[in-house]
C-alpha cells in the first residue's frame, strides 16, 4: 500500500496562498490526519494529493511515482467527500459498484467486491435504496464503501463526518479507521475536530494558514506541543506571560507578572527573553494547604463549574492572572467559590514558548 510524499508544494488561488511550501511524508498503511481550523489549507492539500487540483510548485509522489500530471482517475485513490457526493440517480448497489464498472472490472468481480464492502459497512440490506432514502450515517457508509470498492490503495477523506450528528460521528470514525486498517490502506483524513483526529490517527499534521505547524502522534502533540498554536488548538492550555530569569540545564525559571517565579521545562529560551508559559488545566495541582514550597502560586477560586466527569475551576492568581484547572469530579476533594488555594505547576508539564512576534492573540487565533 502506498506512501505519500509531498515535497515543497505550494498552491495559490489568486493572491491567496492556500498551501505554502508544505513538505510531508505519510507512511505505508498509516492513518494520518490533517488537522486545523477552517481555511488553513488542509482540504486544498488533500485535493492536491487527489489530483483534483494541480500544485503551482513542488512535487507529489504516491508510492514513489511523481503524480503531478497524473489525473485523479489514474491515481488509484478513493475519495470520501464531506457532502457524501452519492450519485442520486443510482441506488446504493450501483453507487458502490460504480468504480469497478467504470474501471472495466468484469461483472462477477464487480459484484463480489460490491457485496464484500457492503458487508463491511453493514448495509447489505439497503442495496436497492436511493441516497434520498438513506440517513446521513448510511450515506456516508455507502460513500466509504464506494471508495473502497474501486480498489483504492490510498483513501482520502475530506471531513467525512462533518455533516453527521455527534453520536453517529463517534461510532463511524472508529469504523472507518478499522476498515482502513483491516484492508491495509493508507488513509489521509482531513478534519477540524481535534478529538476526532486524536481518537483515530496514527499521526497528525497540524496546519495553520497553509503551513504545517507540527507533525506527531496524538500523544506527542498533546504532551509536547512545539508552539502556542498547537498548545491552544489541541486540548486546552493556560497561557501566562513572563520573562526568563535564569536557566539551569533543561529547566528555566520564569518571572511572571507581579514578580512570581515558576520553574518550567525549557528547550530554547534565553535569559531575559519574553516567553509564554503553557500548562494544561488537568496538569495543574490545586491544594488548600501547601504541601511543598516550590512552584506554587496562591490564588482564590473565582468560579466552579460541574461538568459531570470533571470539575472546572477558574482561579484568580495573586498576580491577577486567571487560569483554569480541571480535575476529575470523583477523585479528591472539591473546592468552593471564594476558597483560597495554592496552585502547583509541575515543571515537567509546564512548557515555555518564545513569545510570538505577532502577539499571543494572533498566534493562537484560528483565522
Amino acid at each position, binding site marked *: 500500500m502506498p506512501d505519500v510524499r509531498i515535497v515543497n508544494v505550494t498552491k495559490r488561488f489568486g493572491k491567496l496562498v492556500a498551501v505554502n511550501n508544505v513538505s510531508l511524508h505519510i507512511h505505508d498503511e498509516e492513518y494520518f490526519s490533517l488537522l486545523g481550523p477552517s481555511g488553513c489549507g488542509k482540504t486544498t492539500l488533500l485535493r492536491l494529493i487527489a489530483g*483534483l487540483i494541480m500544485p503551482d510548485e513542488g512535487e507529489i509522489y504516491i508510492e514513489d511515482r511523481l503524480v503531478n500530471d497524473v*489525473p485523479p*482517475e489514474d*491515481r488509484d485513490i*478513493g475519495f470520501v467527500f464531506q457532502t457524501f*457526493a452519492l450519485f442520486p*440517480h443510482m441506488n446504493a448497489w450501483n453507487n458502490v459498484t*460504480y468504480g469497478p464498472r467504470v*474501471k472495466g472490472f468484469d461483472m462477477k468481480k464487480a459484484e463480489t467486491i460490491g457485496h464484500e464492502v457492503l458487508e463491511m459497512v453493514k448495509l447489505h440490506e439497503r442495496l436497492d435504496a436511493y441516497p434520498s432514502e438513506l440517513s446521513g450515517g448510511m450515506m456516508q457508509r455507502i460513500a466509504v464503501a464506494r471508495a473502497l470498492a*474501486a480498489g483504492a490503495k490510498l483513501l482520502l477523506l475530506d471531513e467525512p463526518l462533518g455533516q453527521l450528528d455527534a453520536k453517529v460521528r463517534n461510532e463511524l470514525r472508529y469504523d472507518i479507521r478499522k476498515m482502513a486498517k483491516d484492508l491495509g490502506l493508507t488513509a489521509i483524513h482531513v478534519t477540524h475536530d481535534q478529538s476526532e483526529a486524536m481518537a483515530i490517527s496514527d499521526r497528525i499534521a497540524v496546519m495553520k494558514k497553509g503551513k504545517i505547524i507540527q507533525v506527531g502522534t496524538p500523544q506527542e502533540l498533546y504532551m509536547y506541543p512545539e508552539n502556542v498554536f498547537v498548545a491552544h488548538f489541541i486540548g486546552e492550555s493556560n497561557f501566562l506571560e513572563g520573562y526568563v530569569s535564569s536557566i539551569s540545564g533543561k529547566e528555566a525559571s520564569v518571572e511572571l507578572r507581579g514578580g512570581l517565579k515558576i520553574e518550567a521545562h525549557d528547550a530554547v529560551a534565553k535569559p531575559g527573553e519574553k516567553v509564554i508559559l503553557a500548562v494544561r488545566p488537568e496538569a495543574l495541582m490545586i491544594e488548600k494547604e501547601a504541601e511543598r514550597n516550590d512552584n506554587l502560586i496562591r490564588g482564590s477560586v473565582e468560579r466552579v463549574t460541574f461538568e459531570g466527569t470533571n470539575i472546572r475551576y477558574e482561579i484568580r492568581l495573586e498576580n491577577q492572572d486567571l487560569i483554569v484547572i480541571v480535575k476529575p469530579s470523583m477523585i479528591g476533594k472539591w473546592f468552593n467559590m471564594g476558597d483560597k488555594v495554592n496552585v502547583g505547576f509541575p515543571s515537567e508539564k509546564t512548557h515555555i514558548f518564545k513569545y510570538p512576534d505577532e502577539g499571543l492573540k494572533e498566534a493562537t487565533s484560528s483565522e
Partner: protein
Amino acid sequence: MVSLAIFLAIRVIGARLRMPGKQVWPTFERKLSYSKATSTRNGATLVIFLLIVLIPSLYVALPAFSAVFTPTLSNAISGTGVWGQYWQGLTLSYALGAIVTVLNVIIGLPMAVIVARRKLGKMPSAILDLLVNVPLIVPSIALGVSLAIFWKQNFAFIPEIWLLIFAHLAITYPYFVRATAAAIERISVDMEEASRTLGAKPLGVFRTIILPLTKYSVFSGAIMVFTRSISETGATVAVSSALKTAPVVIVNWVKPTILPPPATPMEIGLGCGFLILFSFAILLVLRLIVRGKGRY
C-alpha cells in the same frame, strides 16, 4: 450592440440588486394570504390569462371549426389547391424542427458544459455566457438577413436548405444552451469529482453522471428548440425565397403580396388550426414523457 449592452447591464446590475424586502406589512400581507384573497387572485390570474393570452392566440383558428361542415376540410385533407403548398410547408417545418433539435443537442451540450463549469476560466466563460444570448436579443428577421448575407456572400454554393437550418440553429441555440447549462450548474461539482476519483475519464463522467442527471432538462430544452423552430417566421423569410415553412405560408395567406388573396379566412383558420393541433399533440406527448421526472 445596444441590445447587448442593455443585456449586459441587466446581468451585472441585476446580480447586485437587493430585493427591498426589509420592510414588513404584516396586516396587509395577512389579508392577502387569506383563502378569499388567494381565490380571487387565482381567479383573476386565470381570467387575464384567458383574455389576454390564450383566446387571442387561438382566435384565428376558430373558423376551423366551421370548416368541418364545408368542403374546405376535405380539400385540406386531399391537398387540393393551396393545401398542397401548405402540407409541403408543414412537412418542411417539422423536418427542419427535428434536424435543428438534433443539431442543437450535439453542438449545444458542449457549450452548456463550458458555460456551466466555467471551463475557459471565470471571465472568458462569463463573456461566452453573455454572447450565447445574442440570438435572443437580435430580432429574428435581422438575424436572418445577417445570416443570409454572411453565408451567401462567403459560401454562395451552400444550398438554401442549409441556410435555413443554420438560421434556425442560430435562433434556437440560446434556448437549449440556457436550459441545459442551468441544469448542469445544479449538479454539485463534488459528484463529477467523485466520479473521477472512482476511475471515470472525463467523457465517462459526462456519460454516466452529467447526462443522466440532466437528461430531462436536455429533453425540455430540446422541446423548446423544436417549438421555437416550428414557429420561426422572420429569419425563414429573410434567408430563403424558395423554401416556405408552414408559418411563412400562413403569413403569405394573411398578408398576400398578390391579389386576390390565395386563401379564404376559413382556409387560413384551418391552416392555423392544423398547425396548433399538431404542435400541441407533439408537445403533449413529449411533456408526458418527461412529466415529474428528473427531480433529484
